[in-house]
Every structure is written in C-alpha cells, then in structure tokens.
C-alpha cells in the first residue's frame, strides 16, 4: 500500500521531533531541562494510553511508509553528530546507548520472544570483549577479524549455558543464568591471563582503509571528534541487530519462540523441538552480545571485570521490560532511556539501583507490555 500524504507527514514529523528532543536531551546540563523533556515524553505516552486510536494511526503510518521511515532514520543517524557542536560526552553517551540497544535486542530474543529469563547477557558481552581484546593484544589480530572470532567464542558459551539450563525452568532457569554470570565475572577477576581485577589495557584502536578510529573524521572542512568513528560503527551494529531480529521474528523461528513463550507443552505438541529453540535463543543472544562487547573493548581500549557484572545483565533486562517485550523499536528506546537517564540525573546517582527497581515495578503495574507493545504479525495481502 502506498503511504498517503498524512502518513508521510506523521512519519517525518515524529522522526524529526524525536531527533530534536534527543539532541536537547543530550546537550542539556540543567536537570530541569532534562526533567522537562522527560515530562513531554511521559505526556506523549499518557496520551497513547488513553487514545489507542492515535496509537494505531501512527502504527499504520509507519507500516505504510516503512521505506520513508527507514530512509529518514538513516539520514538522521548519519547527520546527528553534526548537530552536537562537537560535544564528545554526548557522542560517548550515544555510543554506549547504541551498544546497550544491541544488548537489549539480543536479550529480547530470549526474554521477549521466548520468555526465557536470561541474566547472563552481561557475561556474553564480557566474553566477547575479553576474547577480542586478548586476540588483539597477544596475537595482533585486527578488529575486523577479532569481531567474528569473539562472536563465535561467545556463541559457543551460549550453547554451553543453554544446554544445562534446559534441565530447569522459570525461576530455576533464572538462577542458573545468574550463577553463570557470576562465575564468568569471578573467573575474569581471578585468572592471570585476563589481567585479574586490573583487566586488559592498551587495546589498539581499529582502522578501516588506512583511517584510524583514534583520529577525527574530516569531511569537506567539517571535523568530527574521534568518537564519531565508533558512533557510526555502533550504529551499523544496531542496524545489523535490527535486521537480524526482524528476519528471525518474521520467520518460522520467531513463531516457534512465540509459541513456546505462550505454552511450552502445546508448542511441543505442534512439533516444535522446544529444547533446540531455547538453546538457539541463548546462542543468538550471545552472538549479538559479543559484537557489542568487541566494539566496547576497542572503543574504551580498557576493560575490566567490573564492566561485566551481574548488574549489567539486570540493566539490560530492565531495558527490555520498559521498552516492550518482543518489540524491536521498543527495546531500543528502552536502552536509550535507561542508559542516558542515570547519566543525565547524576545528582541522584546514589539511587540508581533504586531507580531501576522502581521503574520495573511501575511498568509491570501500569503498562506491563512495555512502552511499545508487541504487534500481531501480518502476512502480505492476506488482510
């Protein structure tokens, strides 16, 4: 179906408003401006809560104008660093947000699609970071080779975690993954070859076609700080994560995951090999998390076990719950919000954990499906 004029207007307006708000949010120093933007955001959702017809109107507009929406989004992502007045801290926040977005999408395969409470995403993230960092430091492996190697290693760990987890369910499954996360953290802390609590330092910056990621980007007289390299790199990773998530969600595999989320016994009786699909969810989660870990390691150039604690896993889980289970766009929004908010509200940083706890409880009470709920699948032309 071709988008109508009002579809186009809705898509363009919403994306521009989103980008502009994000810019002011990032550059705001005053907590009152931050609070104001947050209030605006909350008001938007309150309206959605009461006017579900608007919500579906917007949904339809994006459905019909998908190409325009994606094209404009890519353009905005490309141009966004130009609007930040060379503020490197804002860029840093964006990079971390994007990496968390990838982690949240990774966890969404499990928590959102298949309802597997995996508290070990932080561990997979860490394994990815350490494997690539070790390869780079000791074997001079460059970033582009370390990336897939780390992903393969983490996926293997994902299988390793998935197989014993299959003997347990629900709360017990959660406990197994918590234990796994803690064990990985302790191992990283105690092995000599991982640098112990000191971690690994001096991870070399990647380079592409002779351009080092440690140097600024200069195009036609416009100079962007070196962080912009990693901003674009992580944006590409988010793109890859979105495409993978959509392809899996829109396939027989996504359906099988949803089936076992709704009713595991009934899923078995439809011919779904439940164990295989659960292990698969672990593997996919680990695969994507390792990508994020690798980029993180090469970006910060220093990693330690404290970057990959149990708390990281809890944070990622909060992002998925807040954003919307099994809604890709939702979990990205959740990741951005929960990465930036604690940074912007530094004054209250002592209460960070309390804040996460309250947010999760509020969401489970008021909007249990998250900011952006899952939508039913549609098949071309059949409806």
């Amino acid at each position: 179906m071709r988008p109508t004029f009002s579809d186009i207007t809705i898509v363009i307006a919403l994306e521009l408003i989103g980008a502009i708000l994000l810019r002011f949010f990032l550059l705001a120093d005053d907590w009152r401006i931050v609070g104001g933007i947050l209030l605006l955001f909350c008001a938007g959702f309150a309206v959605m809560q009461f006017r579900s017809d608007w919500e579906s109107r917007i949904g339809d507009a994006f459905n019909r104008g998908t190409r325009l929406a994606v094209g404009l989004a890519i353009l905005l992502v490309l141009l966004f660093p130009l609007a930040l007045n060379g503020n490197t801290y804002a860029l840093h926040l964006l990079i971390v947000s994007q990496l968390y977005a990838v982690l949240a999408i990774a966890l969404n395969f499990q928590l959102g699609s298949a309802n597997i409470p995996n508290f070990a995403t932080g561990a997979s993230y860490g394994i990815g970071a350490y494997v690539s960092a070790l390869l780079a430091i000791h074997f001079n492996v460059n970033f582009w080779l370390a990336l897939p190697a780390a992903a393969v290693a983490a996926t293997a760990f994902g299988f390793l975690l998935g197989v014993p987890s299959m003997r347990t369910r629900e709360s017990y499954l959660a406990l197994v993954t918590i234990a796994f996360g803690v064990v990985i953290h302790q191992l990283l802390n105690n092995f000599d070859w991982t640098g112990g609590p000191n971690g690994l330092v001096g991870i070399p910056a990647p380079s592409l076609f002779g351009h080092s990621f440690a140097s600024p980007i200069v195009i036609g007289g416009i100079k962007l700080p070196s962080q912009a390299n990693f901003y674009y790199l992580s944006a590409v990773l988010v793109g890859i994560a979105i495409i993978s998530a959509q392809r899996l969600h829109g396939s027989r595999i996504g359906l099988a995951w949803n089936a076992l989320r709704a009713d595991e016994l009934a899923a078995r009786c439809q011919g779904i090999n439940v164990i295989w699909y659960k292990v698969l969810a672990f593997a996919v989660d680990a695969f994507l998390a390792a990508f994020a870990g690798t980029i993180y390691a090469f970006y910060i150039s220093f990693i330690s076990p404290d970057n990959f604690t149990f708390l990281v896993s809890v944070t990622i889980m909060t992002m998925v719950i807040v954003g919307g289970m099994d809604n890709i766009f939702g979990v990205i929004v959740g990741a951005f919000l929960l990465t930036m908010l604690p940074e912007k509200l530094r004054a209250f940083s002592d209460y960070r954990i309390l804040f996460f706890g309250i947010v999760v409880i509020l969401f489970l009470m008021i909007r249990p499906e998250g900011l952006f709920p899952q939508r039913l699948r549609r098949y071309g032309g059949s409806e």
Partner: protein
Amino acid sequence: MSGHAVLRGEGLTIRFGGLVAMDGVDFVLQAGEILGVIGPNGAGKSTLFNLITGLYQPTAGKVFLNDRPLNGLPAHRIVQMGISRTFQSSRLFTDLSVLDNVIIGMHCRTQSGVFDAMLRPSKARGELRQAAAKAGELLRSVSAGLYDQRGRAASELAQADRRRLEIARALAAEPKVLLLDEPSSGMDDRDTDALIADVRAIIARRPELSIMIIEHDMRLVAELPHRVMVIEYGRKIAEGSFADIRNMPRVQEAYLGRKATAHA
C-alpha cells in the same frame, strides 16, 4: 473404514510412584475410523493420549504407528510422524493471531532454519507466506467464521471458536491420526451440535484420517464414533459399538456407581 490398523497400543502401562495410572491397555485404531474413549473422571483417558503423543513414556507396553514403534521418541517427532492432538482445556497461543496459531501447527511441515532466516530471507519469507496462504485455506475449510477472524488474537475468540481453532491447528500438521481430548467440554447443546457437524465435515474431506475422541457428552458419543472403548481405573473394561456398550452392567457401574445400578 479401510480395515488396516493405523495406531496400535499393546499393554500400555504407566506408574507414577505407587499409582498405576494406566494398566495394560490394548487398543487398535483403524484407518478412517473414529474411536470414542469414555470413562469416569480420573480414569486415565488423557493419560492414554499423553502416552501416545510422547508427553509420557510408558513404564511398559508399546505404541505403534503403521507398525513403527513410537516408544522413546520425543513429542515433537511424534507430531512429525503424523499424530496431532487437542487439549482438554484449550491450549492456544493466546497472544498470537488466529492465523499464526495455524501456521505454528505447520511447524513440522516447513523447513527454514536460522541460516535461511538470516541469510536467505526471501526463501524463509516465501515459505512462511505460502504457509500463511495454506493456513488461511485450512481455516476456511474448518469454519468460515474463524477465517474471518484470522487477524485477531486467539484470546479474543469465543469458546466454540477456540475449539475449532485448536482442531484446525492440529490438522495443520497433516496428521494421519487426530486425538481430540474432550472437544465439547464447556459447550452448550448448540455448540456441541456445531462441533459434531464440524468433525463430520473434516472427515468428509479426509477419508483416511483416523480419530480418537475422549468425550463425556453421550450425545456426541452416540453420534460420532464407530466404536467406543471404556476405561476405568486405568484399565479397559469394555469395547464395542455404543449401542452394545451402554447396556453393559460394568459400564453403568463405572458411570453411576455400584449402588445406583444395584437399586436400578
């Protein structure tokens, strides 16, 4: 009825600790036959279905599908081999659309794996689109009303339509044997009549399909099955046509209790 045994159980026994839930049950299901399974609550009728579909592994005894033993196979393999079922309390995927429920029923008749989905999305999507078209056809053949609601979430369906959807989902796996576990439970007389008509329409299209049906509603048991077997305390106590069964003292005892029949 074309007289060869599609599904056969020999001495099926299962113990849960000290409890013998099923004790040496033999049965045969012919191609194109409808076999009714009746018995008081807790007699072991659903246990029998769980044994056939691989949800339980029998302590002793064997199940054969077309003379191939099924023992030890996991539930999802047994579906693939051609035995589908519905559940006593409907177990739909309530947060998915009606159409998706049927497409999931086709899981073992579709192929795409992870690598297809990620690297050859056009192939995976094409397969799913075909499945969606087929699922639509199947829904239409089971019930036009259900087909019209195919885009809605399964949780929004009325009770009778939930039953229909569960049957449609089971048929999506292209089974040789269909096990219906109390399809009329929670239905009024009118819905039950509609259900009988639905099942008749299904077998009219699929003369080779064999059906086992657990029922309490005697109207349905009188109308649909060719043969009925009666289970009590995990044992088969009688088997035959409904007309013969209903007059057997043992069967009346099982249903009404010993005293009631003694007084009668």
